[in-house]
C-alpha cells in the first residue's frame, strides 16, 4: 500500500523533526522544510499528497505558499498549523483553499485523523 506523502513546513526545526518522526512511525512518508523557498523546492521536486503548513513561517507568507500550492494542484490538501489562534489568518487560509487547521501543541491522533480525511477527499477527485 502506498504511503501518504506529507510535506511539513515549519520554521521550528526541533518541532518539525519530532513530529516528522512520529508521523513516519505511523507509516507516513514525511519531508520537512523550514522556510518558504525550501518548501516550494521540495514541493516541485516531488509533489506531496498533503501539506502541513505553519501559517507564520519567516520570509514567505504562509498564505502565499498555500495559494501557490493550490494553483499548481488543487487536489493537494493543505492543513494549517497555527500556534496563536489568529482567526483572520485561519479564515483567509480557508478561503484560499486550506482544508482545515490544527492548533499547536498538536494532538497526534487528531492530526492523523485530519490527514486521513484529507486523503479521502483527495482520492475522490
Amino acid at each position: 500500500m502506498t504511503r501518504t506523502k506529507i510535506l511539513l513546513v515549519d520554521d521550528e526545526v526541533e518541532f518539525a523533526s519530532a513530529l516528522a518522526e512520529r508521523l513516519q512511525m505511523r507509516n507516513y512518508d514525511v519531508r520537512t522544510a523550514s522556510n518558504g523557498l525550501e518548501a516550494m523546492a521540495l514541493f516541485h521536486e516531488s509533489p506531496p499528497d498533503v501539506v502541513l503548513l505553519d501559517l507564520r513561517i519567516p520570509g514567505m507568507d504562509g498564505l502565499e505558499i498555500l495559494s501557490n500550492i493550490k494553483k499548481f494542484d488543487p487536489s493537494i490538501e493543505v492543513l494549517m498549523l497555527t500556534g496563536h489562534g489568529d482567526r483572520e489568518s485561519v479564515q483567509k487560509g480557508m478561503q484560499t483553499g486550506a482544508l482545515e487547521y490544527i492548533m499547536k501543541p498538536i494532538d497526534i491522533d487528531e492530526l492523523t485523523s485530519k490527514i486521513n480525511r484529507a486523503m479521502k477527499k483527495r482520492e475522490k477527485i
Partner: protein
Amino acid sequence: MRRDDKQEQELRLLQLRFIGKILAGFTHESKNYLAIINESAGLMGDMIQMGKSSEKDLSEYLQIIRSVEDQIRRSNDHFRALNRFAHRMDTELSSYNINESLEELVALLTRFANQRKITLKKNFQEDIPSIYGNPALFQLLVFSFLDKGFSTLDKDSRITLQTAVADRTVQIKIILEGTVVKQESDVPFLPFEMAEKIIDQLQGNIKQEGGGETLLILPLTAS
C-alpha cells in the same frame, strides 16, 4: 476635554496597545516551546510503546530529554524577560538601567523580527550607569521606533539598538537599515508629537538624524 487630558488618555491607550502586542508575541512564543516539548514527549512515548531500547535508541532518548530541557530553559528566560518588563510598571518613576530595559525589549520582540526576516542587533556600551525616570514610557518610546522598522522595512533588513554615554547623557540610537517597502501608515503606532511628549516626560531629547537613524538623549541624572 483639555488637550493635556486628551493626550494623557491617548498615551494610556497606546501603552495598553503596546502591552497587548508584547503579550500576543509572548504567548505565541510560549506556545512554540510547548509544542516542541509536546512533540518530544510524544516521540519518546511512541518509541517506548514500540519497545525501542537499543543503545542507539537510548542515545536518542537522551537527545530528546536534552531538547526538552533546552526548551524549558529558553521558555524560562522568556518568562523572566516578561516578568521584568511587567515590573517596570510597578512605579511611575524609578532608577533603571537602559541596557537591561532594552535587553528585555529585544528578548520579547526577537520573534516579531525573525518572522519578518529582520535582524535585531544590539550594540551596547557596557558600563552605562542607571538613570532615574519612567522605564515603562522609555520602553514604549523605543518600541514605537522598532515597530516603524518592522512595519516599513523589507526582509533581510537590520535594526540596530546602540547605547553610549556622552556629555553627561545616555544616548540611545535606533538605526533602521534596509529597503523601505511600505511607507509608515497615516496613523503610525506613536505619532511623533506623542513621542515628543514622552521624551519631555523623560526630560530628554529626540533627534531624527536622517538615513533611518533616531537618537534619544536622556540625562544621566534627572532633576
